[in-house]
């Protein structure tokens, strides 16, 4: 470690198609930089768990309060689409893990390919989600056009919950299930989109040769983010589509 602080630690590039990485000035070693960023990111993921956790707590709370509403509500969702999306996300989690592996082994083309496949998985997921939301809209479970309209305080009628066919007529507060369904899947969907954006950013850097066995930290972190999105869906799927 030099005394003037200008002498930077550099990780050499493993080949001509890659770029070297300069360690930030306040770290002494690449290991310290890697581990700091990694711990920071795990802490961030922990905050994501607790943020989503509030929604899960609300789910369990009202599942306990109105079990019939939730049972009937779950029946209105298309479990086949849910299962399809589960498979898509699991597969994309696998391609992401393979992408990180490609970065760890300095395989630039493979990294780009797996990242591309993961983004494709995200797009398929969102397309299926769109089909699903449209069906909910058609049944009047979530009328998106009226989502932000004010509700009638005298009758307690919520404009976005019309239930045209009366599927939920027998149970109290049918809209509650769909409100929780919409909120959870929409926030999760937002995370899918953010994740896809981050993977595209990784692909941009990968094309320039920034990531290799010596330095793949950003790939690793974005990978962790993507697996977290998968992790949350693993719980959402049985709770919403197969309401126990």
């Amino acid at each position, binding site marked *: 470690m030099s005394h003037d602080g200008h002498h930077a630690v550099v990780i050499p590039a493993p080949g001509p198609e890659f770029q070297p990485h300069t360690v930030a000035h306040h770290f002494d070693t690449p290991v310290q930089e890697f581990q700091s960023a990694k711990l920071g990111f795990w802490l961030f993921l922990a905050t994501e768990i607790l943020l989503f956790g509030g929604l899960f707590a609300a789910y369990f709370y009202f599942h306990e309060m109105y079990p019939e509403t939730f049972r009937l509500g779950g029946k209105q969702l298309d479990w086949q689409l849910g299962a399809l999306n589960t498979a898509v996300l699991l597969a994309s989690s696998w391609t992401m*893990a393979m992408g990180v592996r490609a970065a760890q082994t300095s395989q630039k083309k493979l990294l780009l390919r797996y990242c591309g496949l993961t983004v494709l998985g995200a797009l398929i997921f969102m397309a299926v989600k769109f089909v699903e939301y449209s069906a909910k809209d058609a049944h009047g479970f979530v009328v998106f056009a009226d989502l932000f309209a004010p509700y009638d305080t005298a009758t307690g009628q919520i404009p976005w919950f019309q239930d045209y066919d009366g599927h939920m*007529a027998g149970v109290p507060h049918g809209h509650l299930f769909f409100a929780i369904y919409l909120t959870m899947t929409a926030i999760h969907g937002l995370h899918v989109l953010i994740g896809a954006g981050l993977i595209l950013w990784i692909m941009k850097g990968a094309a320039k040769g920034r990531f290799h066995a*010596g330095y793949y930290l950003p790939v690793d972190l974005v990978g962790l983010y993507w697996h977290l999105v998968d992790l949350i869906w693993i719980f959402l799927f049985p709770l919403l589509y197969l309401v126990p």
Partner: protein
Amino acid sequence: MTVHDHDAHAGSGALQMGHHHVSSAALFAKVLVALLILTAITVGASRIHFGAANMLIAMFLACVKASLVMAFFMHLKWDTAINKIVFFGSFLFLSLLIVFTIADQTTRRMDGKWHVQKSPVQYEWVHPRLLTDKKD
């Protein structure tokens, strides 16, 4: 299932990053297959009526799947102790939130005469379908 396969062709810079685990492609493939099978089991189990146990079974299977993702895809199995503690800690503290709120919910109806009764809700909820029926 074999775990902890080290990949031979880690690049030249790998040493400078400290010891990092590179899992084999075969391991990842096995994990994916296991996850898909567990998804099928989850759907199957939801078809059989176990009563209240359905929730426990679904959550147990989800936890198994989540553990697979965390251990292998997220490399947590080979990660540092502090990172493991951080992530599992978040689930622990989340469980505090859920357990205490649900405990309040479920014990409220056991309160009986000890408890101040909630005032009745001012507006009774009416299903929208019934409202439109009346108009017709």
